């Protein structure tokens, strides 16, 4: 399947991936409205890992045998066997944080406002995930990787 891959040596830690991820998952999909008008503040599902001069972004890796899917208490985390994606259903999520505990990448984000988790959905409907499309230095690549 196609996955997002981080290139540590190309990342400048600018944080645009986080901004565009949050906007892509906002109601309006508009950067100004998302941050200034919408009631619930947009949450990025990608996270910069920074310890200068090293930085790179990390998000759900849609693991082949995903620990979050096995561990989920509520059946909110599922694996789409056809596409390979790990899908999170917010309606089913009970915010028990079990997936946060078992994710080997620490890539599941706690939405403390709604008391549920959130994570990368590879920007369904977009040709390329927003973080990849808006990375100014091609530190994020969307490519076919062996699972």
């Amino acid at each position, binding site marked *: 399947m196609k996955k997002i891959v981080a290139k540590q040596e190309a990342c400048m830690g600018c944080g645009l991936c986080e901004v565009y991820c949050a906007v892509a998952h906002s109601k309006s999909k508009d950067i100004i409205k998302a941050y200034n008008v919408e009631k619930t503040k947009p949450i990025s599902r990608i996270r910069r890992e920074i*310890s200068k001069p090293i930085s790179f972004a990390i998000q759900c890796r849609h693991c082949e045998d995903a620990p979050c899917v096995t*561990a989920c*208490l509520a059946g909110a985390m599922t694996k789409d066997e056809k596409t390979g994606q790990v899908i999170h259903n917010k309606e089913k999520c009970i915010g*028990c944080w079990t997936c946060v505990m078992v994710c*080997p990448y620490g890539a599941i984000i706690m939405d403390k406002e709604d008391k549920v988790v959130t994570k990368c959905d590879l920007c369904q409907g977009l040709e390329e995930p927003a973080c990849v499309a808006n990375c100014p230095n091609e530190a994020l690549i969307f490519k076919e990787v062996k699972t």
Partner: protein
Amino acid sequence: MAKYVIVGASAAGIGAIEAIRKIDPMGSISIITEEYCADYSRPMISDLVSGKADIQKMKCRADSFWTENKVDTRLSKKAVSIDLAEKTVALEDGEKISYEKLLLATGGKPFVPKIEGQEKDGVFTFTTMAEAQRLATKIDENQSKSAVVIGAGLIGISVTEALVKRGLKVTVVELKEKILSLLLDPKASEIVEAVIKKAGVNFATGQSVQKIVGKPDNENAVGGVVLTRGEYIPCDVVVVAVGVIPRTELVAGTSIKSNRGIIVDNFMQTNIPDVYASGDVAEAYDFILDQNRLLPLWPLAVLEGKVAGYNMAGKRTAYEGGTNMSSLKYFGIPIVSIGNANPKQDDTTLEKLVKLDAENNVYKKLVLKNNVIVGITLVNDIDRAGIFFNLMKKKVNVKRFKQELLSDDFSWAVLPVSLQRKMGVIQ
């Protein structure tokens, strides 16, 4: 005749079905459960009482799960005996189901110590949907105002939160001096106890319930409890949540070996070929203690069930092991506890890294043995729990970056680049 027979339709049974179907799409599967509803999330029964979830939300698999996986489900049926020579399971109604491969996933049952007055109306345990529904109905009908919860472990704290949400005044009685003592060290326990007290909960620790007494106008209904030190606490309901014990009744009298739970090997097989056990009923491998033990936890039950399922269907698969691991969401304070999180004070082979931010109720502790993480406690700052757990499972030597682990800006980036590559974080 079914190729696969599974007794118990909760976490381990579901995990087994999913694994079997990955290998064997057609082999017949029969699953037997005493409950009238299969595939509900047991940890969610507190949400049922609080009103946060209904039965539909509690279903942890799609409605089509059983039909899609071509499973013959026997709801409200009790398996009463196994004939290992005949390879059959007998049900209470007389039916015998023969198997090629058998999985015992019977789970646990609440342990209820003998307490005077425990037969009174208003005394509950808290491990099944039926029991949770009875409790919810009782609260509705009697307009209960107060409750006593016996046991301050995972189940006790979860039901306490549900009762508080329903507006009841709750007193938690705990035999140990500290709450959540199987998960938390004294400091973490204190922080969490203070948070729960703020929500209006009373704790009576270092005590147990001597007797349950009736109401003045109805001796048969719960009216209060008397603690061991003599204190009387009036209440309308009592919930006994002191722990669960494995349901091993089916193997009693057979040659299937058990200690407290059913003994299994690394492939979830019992000492009898073709007979497997998983979940709360089994003693599976703990990779921190390096021994088999009871670990009645939902995620491990699913995992053990999966391993059993693969092996039953012919794909030789070893269990990677689990350990005592829990994440808690109750009373708005997220907690993660993994492995040897509360070691004995006098164990000099262990090193402890501790960070306390009392103002924000943040407490983080890592327990190291020979520079490998063997215990994790995170209170109110659990975002990066998964990274620590990964380092623990892979037994990564943390000596070089020990001092970074509990820093506020801890992330993958502070770890050596070579390690980031090795762990598959970057390319």
